[in-house]
Every structure is written in C-alpha cells, then in structure tokens.
C-alpha cells in the first residue's frame, strides 16, 4: 500500500469510528435522558422493554424505540413538499454528524515510526468548521417547518432560525476570547495550548483562564442545541414544533440530531475549555506513548460525558424561557458580555506582554 492509500484508509477508519461513537452515544443518551430525569424526579423511568424477561435497567428501550419507529408509516402531508420534507432531517443530522468528525478525540499516536492523528478531520479552521456546520444545520429546521405545510411547524422553523442566528453571533464572539489566548483555530492545537500549567501546578485549561467565557459558551451552546430551557422551536406545550408533521424514522432523525448536537457541544467545550485529553498527573504514570495517547481518548470521553451530564441536568431543572426573554438573553446579555470578555482578554494579554 502506498502512503497515500494508508492515509486515506486511516481517515476512513477514524471517521467511521467517530460516527459510530457519536451515534452510539446518541442512542445511549436517549436512555440516559429518561433515567436521569427519572432519578432527579424520584421516579424509576423506562424499564418495561425486556428480552426474555431480562430488563437490564431499561437499556433495551434503546433497541425498542428505533424498531418501533422503523415500522411506522412515513407520512408526508398531502399539501407538503415531499422532496424537502425528506431532505430536512437528513440535512440536520448530516451537518451535526460532520461536526463529530472535526472533534479532537486524542493526541497523535506515534506507532511504527509514523504519526497517526486521532482527529478524524484534522483541519486548521476546526472551530469555524464546527460552528458553520451547526448553523447550516438550522436550514434543516426551517426546511422541515416550511415543507410540512402546517402553521405550527412553520412557526417552529422560524423560531428556530431566529434563535440560531442570535446565538450563533454570540457563540463566535464568546469563543473569540479563548481562541485569542490559544492563538489558533485548530481544535487539536487549541487542546495542546492547554497542556501547560501556570503557577507550576494549575492546568492552563480554558475554564480557569476564561471562566466567564465557559459559562456563556454553555448557555449559548444549550440554545444552539434547541433543548430545554431553550427549546423554543420545539415548544411542546405551545406549538408542537418544526417536526410536528414528521413520523417514523424521519422524526427519530430529528431526535438523534438533537442528541448529536449536544454531543458536539460537549466535545467542543471539552476541547476548548476543559483541556481536551489532558489530565494532570497522567504523564507521571510512565505509560508508553501509544498507550498514553489512547488513555487521552478515555480522558476526553470522560470529560465529554461529564459535560453531557451537566447539560441533561440543566435541561431537566429549568423551565423554558419565553420567546422575548430568549432573544433578549441572546442579543442584550450574551453578546455584550462576550464582547466585554474579549476586550478584557485582549487588554490583559497586551498589558502582561507590555509589562
């Protein structure tokens, strides 16, 4: 095999692994969501799906739900537009799945005299790519709202568009602060930039250097994923949402899209704020380089799961914001605060270099 072919097949392996990791985690999240909400509301949660009497804490619901949805009718409203109706969930899910491939899952492995990057799509503008893909994903929402020929789904789609635009702007200006510190748009390099320590023991993670940006990023990111308390496009109690006319697997794709966006958000905050695959003290164990890099993948996944837990907890704790509150939070609070954070960061960096 030529080196080029090895490179291409290694990319395929990585993308395959990342997609499977994301999809598997999304399926698992559907179970976690039910069980976590049940635990914090003193309930038991879904536990009825069984295989030969074994219930396994309700884990078989992960299988049972898609099986049910696969066999449901794929209904398109008679006035709706079939092409766009079919395309919308694919666009949403495809865009967020592409984001998965840009996440830096681990440090490069040196094996057999060669360097194997563990990032499925190593690219210089990773942050911009992820943000762009997340905002392209909203086209699926609008498309679903329009092609369903229903006033409710159209309202949901338009709400989704307004929400995405307002939080997309805030998101970029929030990330300006930490990215200014790391001096790169590459997600792997951003993680590497957090490897140092300051005051000789404190890890230079984004959450310690930019705590305000981390909190703002979590808020904007939760809005970006369209989940409670920012589930305005869905708004179950008022308008059922942009997917009101969807059934079967197409509906499941929208649900999966929500979970994958949450996973991407967790991965992004891990890479940019929580030090990625770095863990203080892990280097002292004296692991060989490939093992060390693979342990880093585990660290990355563990941090991601911690962020996912927090996002789930927030989702089941807070009530939904009103529409005007949502837009006011985005434009009047998040945007000025993030710009102030960026200005302060720039000033402190300039001051520390000058002095």
């Amino acid at each position, binding site marked *: 095999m030529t080196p080029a072919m090895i490179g291409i097949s290694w990319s395929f392996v990585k993308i395959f692994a990342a997609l499977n990791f994301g999809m598997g985690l999304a399926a698992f999240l559907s179970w976690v969501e039910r069980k976590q909400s049940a*635990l*914090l509301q003193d*309930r038991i949660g879904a536990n009825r799906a069984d295989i030969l009497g074994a219930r396994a804490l309700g884990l078989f619901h992960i299988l049972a739900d898609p099986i049910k949805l696969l066999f449901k009718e794929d209904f398109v409203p008679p006035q709706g537009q079939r092409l766009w109706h079919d395309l919308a969930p694919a666009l949403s899910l495809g865009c967020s799945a592409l984001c998965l491939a840009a996440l830096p899952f681990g440090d490069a492995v040196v094996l057999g005299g060669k360097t194997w990057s563990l990032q499925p799509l190593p690219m210089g503008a990773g942050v911009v790519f992820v943000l762009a893909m997340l905002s392209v994903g909203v086209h699926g929402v609008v498309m679903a709202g329009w092609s369903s020929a229903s006033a409710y789904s159209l309202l949901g789609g338009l709400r989704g568009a307004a929400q995405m635009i307002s939080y997309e702007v805030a998101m970029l200006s929030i990330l300006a602060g930490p990215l200014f510190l790391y001096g790169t748009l590459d997600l792997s390099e951003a993680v590497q930039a957090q490897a140092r320590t300051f005051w000789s023991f404190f890890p230079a993670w984004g959450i310690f250097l930019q705590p305000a940006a981390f909190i703002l990023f979590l808020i904007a990111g939760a809005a970006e994923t369209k989940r409670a308390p920012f589930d305005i496009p869905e708004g179950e109690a008022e308008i059922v949402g942009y997917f009101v006319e969807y059934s079967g697997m197409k509906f499941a794709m929208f649900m999966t899209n929500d979970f994958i966006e949450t996973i991407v958000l967790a991965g992004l905050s891990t890479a940019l704020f929580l030090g990625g695959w770095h863990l203080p003290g892990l280097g002292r164990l004296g692991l060989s380089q490939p093992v060390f890099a693979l342990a880093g993948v585990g660290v990355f996944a563990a941090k991601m799961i911690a962020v996912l837990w927090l996002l789930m*907890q*927030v989702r089941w704790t*807070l009530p939904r914001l009103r529409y005007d509150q949502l837009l006011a939070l985005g434009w009047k609070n998040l945007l000025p605060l993030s710009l102030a954070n960026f200005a302060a960061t720039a000033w402190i960096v300039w001051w520390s270099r000058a002095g």
Partner: protein
Amino acid sequence: MIAEPDGIAKVRIVKAPEMGFLERIYLVEVLKGLLVTSRHFFINLWRHMKKALGRETEPGAVTIQYPEDPAVVARRSRTHHRLLRREDGAPRCAACMLCETICPAKCIRIVAEESPDVMIEKRAKSFEIDLGRCVFCGFCVEACPVDAIRMDTGRVEMAAFWRTDMARDITQLLGERPRQ
C-alpha cells in the same frame, strides 16, 4: 378585604417581592436549582445502587410498579360493589328501587318479587349492575335504606374484553368480600 365591624373595609396592599441583583442575573438561582435536582439525583442513585447490592435502604423512587406491586387504594375509596346478607343468609336488599332511581348512570337494574317472609314483603329477584356504565359515585350506597349495598371491596381491577362481561348479577355481587 376584611370587613370591619364599623362597616369600613380594611385594605391590605401586598407588594410582589422585588428581585435583587443576584436573582436578576439568574445564574445563582440556576445553580440553586441545579443543587436541588443534583441532590435528588445523587441520593436516589446511591439508594438504587445500595438496593442493587442487596443492602437495606429507603426506596429511591416513589413509583408503584402496578402490575407487579398491588395497587394502593385508599381505605375510603369507592370500589367494586357488593351486596350484603341478613343474619339468616338471605340478601338484605328489599327491592325498594331507591338505588336504581338515584343512579345517575342508570347502571342498576332490579327485578322485584314477593318475599315469602311477610315482614319483608319484597325482595330482589335479580339485581344487576353494569360496571361498564357505573360512574362509582356511591349514590346507591347512600340511598340504600337497609344497608344492602356497599362499595368497600377494595377491588379496582374489573376490566373485560366485552361489554357484556362488565355486568354483574346478584350471585356475583353477593359473593364479593369486603377488603381485609
């Protein structure tokens, strides 16, 4: 408004509590809410884990897993009807038709006949309750002058596949037992 003895109304103005700065920026309140839900989450998780390990613990959930666990019905709740008997074993029902008359769902049907006992005059030849129509209001129990019908069996499971199976005749109703 509280009416005073001299006829002058006393008005008390209640002001909505104003939010302080910490409440208005909302983040602290969010953290408080997260603390509450997280406490529930971890305590319940700990209890479930202890239970899984076979330890003695308080329940981690208030859920009653109904088909496996028995349904909990309050002591006073109105449940499946039963007919009572006299001391000599004959049905108490005197076929006065009060329950049939008061029944808002018209689910009771009584056919009366002459009783051999001259002191009783009438008795029920048949006494049918269609549970498919019954609204469990308990008016029949209230109306009965001879305490012949009660709704204290504690039984709530009376589903059937056919409407005809929802009817109960006099022997079935006499066979019901009060809850233990």
